[in-house]
């Protein structure tokens, strides 16, 4: 614990010393980069190999069932977040999905609701705070969890407390379910992370910017106002 305190203090000091090149959205960049490279090592050593083995051993149809099962457990609180954002119709859809999928979908392993025309949504507490007007705040890379921000980090803590898996007992079953869900999620992201690896000159910046753009888009439910890409918008007058 004390060691983490020292690391944090060092990072904050380093953060103060990054100079004019620092990205204003990422004041803790040195700290974030350190955590990023730690996460990347864990990912390469453990998460990726496990996810690859899972993908190799478990047939695609079964993986779909696993994904659906966990997606169904998440729908009630996706609904709560939609209600908190004033999107009553979407919230009702999420709860209806949960009812249909838990019953006709055999405890959620079949996503029958989508076939009925009830579309799956993507909501969490971070997005709710965003909808209420909170900006992301400083970008953060969390140990093991990866890209986040001050706003989304607080949101993630609430997501954790409202996650049904948190209340599963006995503990062995709870941990097994967490591990399975994590493996499924990582396996679903194998292609994306390979593409990221290929596309990026600097993986850290590329992922950070993609995360910030993605979260902004999610807060607006995909209808974010387009950012102006004109050549002059960054012009500070110096180059004239």
């Amino acid at each position: 614990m004390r060691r983490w305190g020292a690391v944090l203090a060092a990072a904050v000091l380093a953060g103060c010393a990054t100079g004019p090149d620092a990205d204003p959205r990422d004041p803790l960049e040195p700290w974030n980069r350190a955590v990023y490279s730690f996460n990347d090592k864990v990912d390469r050593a453990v998460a990726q190999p496990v996810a690859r083995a899972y993908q190799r051993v478990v047939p695609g149809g079964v993986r779909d069932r696993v994904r659906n099962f966990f997606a169904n457990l998440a729908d009630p609180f996706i609904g709560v977040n939609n209600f908190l954002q004033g999107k009553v119709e979407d919230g009702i859809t999420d709860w209806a999905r949960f009812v249909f999928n838990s019953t006709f979908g055999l405890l959620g392993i079949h996503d029958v609701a989508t076939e009925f025309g009830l579309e799956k949504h993507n909501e969490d507490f971070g997005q709710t705070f965003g909808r209420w007007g909170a900006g992301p705040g400083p970008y953060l890379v969390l140990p093991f969890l990866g890209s986040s921000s001050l706003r989304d980090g607080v949101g993630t803590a609430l997501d954790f407390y409202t996650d049904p898996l948190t209340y599963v007992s006995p503990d062995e079953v709870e941990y097994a379910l967490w591990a399975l869900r994590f493996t499924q999620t990582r396996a679903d992201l194998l292609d994306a992370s390979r593409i990221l690896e290929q596309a990026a000159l600097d993986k850290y910046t590329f992922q950070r910017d993609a995360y910030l753009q993605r979260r902004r888009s999610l807060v607006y439910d995909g209808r974010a106002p387009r950012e102006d890409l004109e050549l002059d918008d960054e012009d500070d007058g110096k180059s004239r």
Partner: protein
Amino acid sequence: MKTTASLASALILCLAAAAALAQPAAPEAPDALVKRVTLEVVGLIAKDQEIRAGNRAKLIALIEAKVLPHFDFASMTALAVGRNWRKASAAQKARLTEEFKTLLVNTYASALAAYSDQKFEFRPLRARPTDTDVTVQVRVLQSGAQPVAIDYAMEKEADGWKVYDVMVGGVSLVANYRTEFASVVRASGVDGLIRSLADKNRSLGAGAAKL
């Protein structure tokens, strides 16, 4: 909802047909273009055993033949490089465009190689007929997850509609590269950016050969 969508697309088809009759050289509507090219490319890949078995060179040749003509890489590169674009010489601009194009084609090839029979939903275009800058929306449907939105920002040019940015799940490629490119240019100039793009492409070429 579905009826409105098909009504709207029927209407667009009628309008497109009418436009085609009125002026013989009218370019294909941007949403029709995206749909046609997407389905054509996916169909060709589905039929091609070699590409399905991982023949990357063949996949890239397919992209170059079918997809590239509908992209405006010069605009894309200019937008991604941002204000440093004006500091670049004509030769540097040409190199940057070429290297960025290679990188994007490689990335696109990886994305297509990861495609596994997901269904597409082509959204009707919401634009006025006089618009010259539109966003064409496609959604990729997947089980147990929210559909992934792929938006093509397109501009009307002399030889038809051209894509100048692609947004995947709300992430604009051009905007994402802009921050990266700006920091490389700040550290090592425009030539530094050309070098690092070229290095990246070489390492991808070497990686692909091993696959």
